[in-house]
Each structure stands twice: as C-alpha cells, then as structure tokens.
C-alpha cells in the first residue's frame, strides 16, 4: 500500500514539475529563437562569400542536458509494452536540440552566419541497467563566420 502511495505521489510530482519546467523552457526557447532569428544557421559546408571578406571563422558549439521526469518515464515504459511512438520523450529531445542550437548561437555572438551545423545526441548516465539516471544531451556545433560589411 505504501509503495502505491509513493508511486502515485512520484507520478503526480513528476507530471506537475515536469510540465511546469517544460512550459517555462519552451517559453524561453521561443523568446530566444525570435531574438536570434537573423543569425542564419545552415548545414551547408560553405557559403559563397569571397575569402578576403571573411574577418573570422571559428568553431562554436552549444550543448544541453535535459532529464526525463518520473511521469514521462512511466509513460514511456508503458509505451514499451505495446510499442509505437514514444511521444513522451519527443519533447525532451526537441528541447535539448533547440536549447543546444540557441547556446551555440549565443557563443557565436555577432557572427554573420554559422555554417556546417551538426547536431549530436547522446544518453547521459546510462552505465548500469538498474541505476538509469535517464537524461539526454544534445550538442550542436558549427563554424561561425563574421563577414565584413
């Protein structure tokens, strides 16, 4: 009985706190994305800019680690039974990737464009099966070019 109570409170806490954090995070992501909308980030390896016009080219990167909450984890484990889209993890990956991109843009500062952008994802803290911390890291990196006017 006590197990069930603990389980249900963790579930409620996970849902409440996870939802609140996610909403807040998405608001902040949307704000910053709008603020940096004029810094293009492209996956092209190079852009057609004459070399003498490029003042600097440097590596920029950003990474974000997002943890799964208890509710999402249970939802995913239920989904594991029947299979299908693990919808509860989708928003985590989405947030991690966008946050990583935003941090990369912040590192780029007043660059004109970031080229050759790549995004990598990895699971963090998954050493043993039993003590699975369950968070994921997204890392975005690229080359920031500053072009003379």
């Amino acid at each position: 009985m006590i197990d069930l109570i603990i389980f249900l409170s963790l579930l409620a806490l996970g849902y409440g706190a996870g939802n609140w954090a996610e909403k807040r995070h998405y608001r902040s992501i949307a704000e910053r994305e709008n603020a940096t909308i004029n810094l293009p980030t492209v996956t092209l390896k190079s852009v057609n800019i004459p070399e003498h016009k490029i003042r600097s080219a440097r590596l920029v990167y950003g990474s974000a680690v997002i943890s799964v909450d208890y509710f999402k984890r249970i939802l995913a484990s239920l989904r594991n039974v029947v299979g299908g889209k693990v919808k509860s993890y989708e928003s985590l990956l989405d947030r991690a990737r966008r946050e990583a991109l935003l941090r990369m843009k912040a590192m780029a500062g007043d660059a004109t464009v970031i080229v050759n952008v790549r995004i990598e994802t990895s699971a963090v803290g998954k050493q043993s099966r039993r003590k699975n911390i369950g968070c994921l890291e997204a890392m975005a990196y690229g080359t920031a070019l500053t072009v003379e006017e």
Partner: protein
Amino acid sequence: MKFTARQPGINVNVSPTHPLKEFAILAGGLLAIAVGVYLALGLAVDLIVPRLSIDLEKKLAGALIGRLVETEEVDTTTRSLQALVGRLQDRCAKLPYNVTVHVTESDAVNAAALPGGHMVIFTGLLAEMTSENELAFVLAHELGHYANRDHLRSLGRSLVLMTASTLLLGADNSINSMIGHGMVLTELSFSRKQESRADEFALETLFCHYGQVAGATAFFKKIPEDGDPGRFGHYFASHPENRRRISHLKDLAQERGYPTGTLFPLPADLMVNTIPP
C-alpha cells in the same frame, strides 16, 4: 523578392497528444487486459476445481500446509474438536476428505477450510462458544465449504491474482504481500452464495446429528454491535449481512420443520478458555 526569416509556427517534432490522455489510454488498456486475464483465469479455476481429484488436491496442499502439519502437537483441545468433527462426518456430513483439525492461537473469531482437508480453528472462536451445538454448527459450516469445494475456488483465485501481479509488477509487490498475509491468516474470502450454501449444509448436518437445530443461529448473534468485524472473519462480513444469514437460517428451519431443543454443554476439554456467561 526579399527573404524574411520567421519561425515555422508549428512544431513537427513533438506529437500534439496530451500526455495525460496517452497515459489514460495506455494504463487503462493494460489494466483492462490484466483484469480480463484475471477474470478468464478465475473462470478457468471455477471450471477446473470441481474436477480436481481429492488426491491431487492433497498433493498440491502438501506444499502449502506442510509447515502447519509438522509443527502441530496434538493436545486435548485439538483431539476433542477432532472427535466432534469425526462424529459429524461419521453419519451426517459424508465427505471424501479426512478432515484434520488444527488449533491455532489467535484472537480471530474464525475458522478456515484449507486445501487437503486441513481445518484451522482459532482459539478466539473457541472462547466464544457456549454450547456443543453452536460449535458443531460452525464446524459443519466449514465442512460445508469442503462439500462445495469453496476453499479451492478462493485459493485458486488468490493464486491467479498472485501470478498476474508477479508477472506485471515483479515478485516483491504490495498486492502479493497483501494476498500472502491473507493466506497466512487464512482469511480466505467467500462469496455470499458460497456462505449461504455452507450455512444450509451446516443446518442440515446439525439436524441430522442432533435431530434438532438449537444453537444454529446463536453464534451469529454474538457479534457485538460496535465490535471490530475484522476479528470475526468470514462469519461476520458485515451487520446487515449477518442479520440476513440469521433470518435465512430461521426461514429454512421453519420451512423444513426442523425443531429446536435443548443445547448440549461443551465438552470439558473445550471449556478451558471459556469465560462462563
């Protein structure tokens, strides 16, 4: 045409389904499947139990009852109860079981029919007894459970529930320990219908043995109005239930013309714990 950067507007990477809705569908669906399996297995138990041979039941019970039988030292109380059960079985309650009586120290005013013909009587029940007829009725009630094989049904269902919860939640879950406790305390639950049939069997046995049915309802009236019903196990599920059983027994006795007569005193061996009324 000039390019203006803007946000895509929709997020294609996140499904719009509300997480609570998804949770409800998944958890509800899995729960429904579990309940369906439990009901199906329960039905299977109901079908199999009447066909289970007594020999097989004894073998299966061996694993469950083994400990109880080993530690049992037969004292005078047990012997006296065994003799009474023997007398009842001899002429009236003919069963394919050799019922073995075990007396267990406990406050519970209860008795239980375990598989393999092992009847457990708690000392709390003996302390409440004031006449042999009353005791005989309770014993015959348990014999009635054997006659209808109710004890296997409830045990089978508990086992099914245990198996299902182990598969779903692992061996160490709360449902298991709940049932486990239930099995140790032998608080096996019977349905209303099963109790009714056992009552009828007990009434017939009482009439057959004594030629009258005095004391049949005496025990039922003993539950104190504000008593803890938990102590009384399956004899006193609840107050309205209790009254319903009394009136059912009275109706039945009247219908069949069973007379009431004088009560016999308890055998001396069983009076040890008795507080005189």
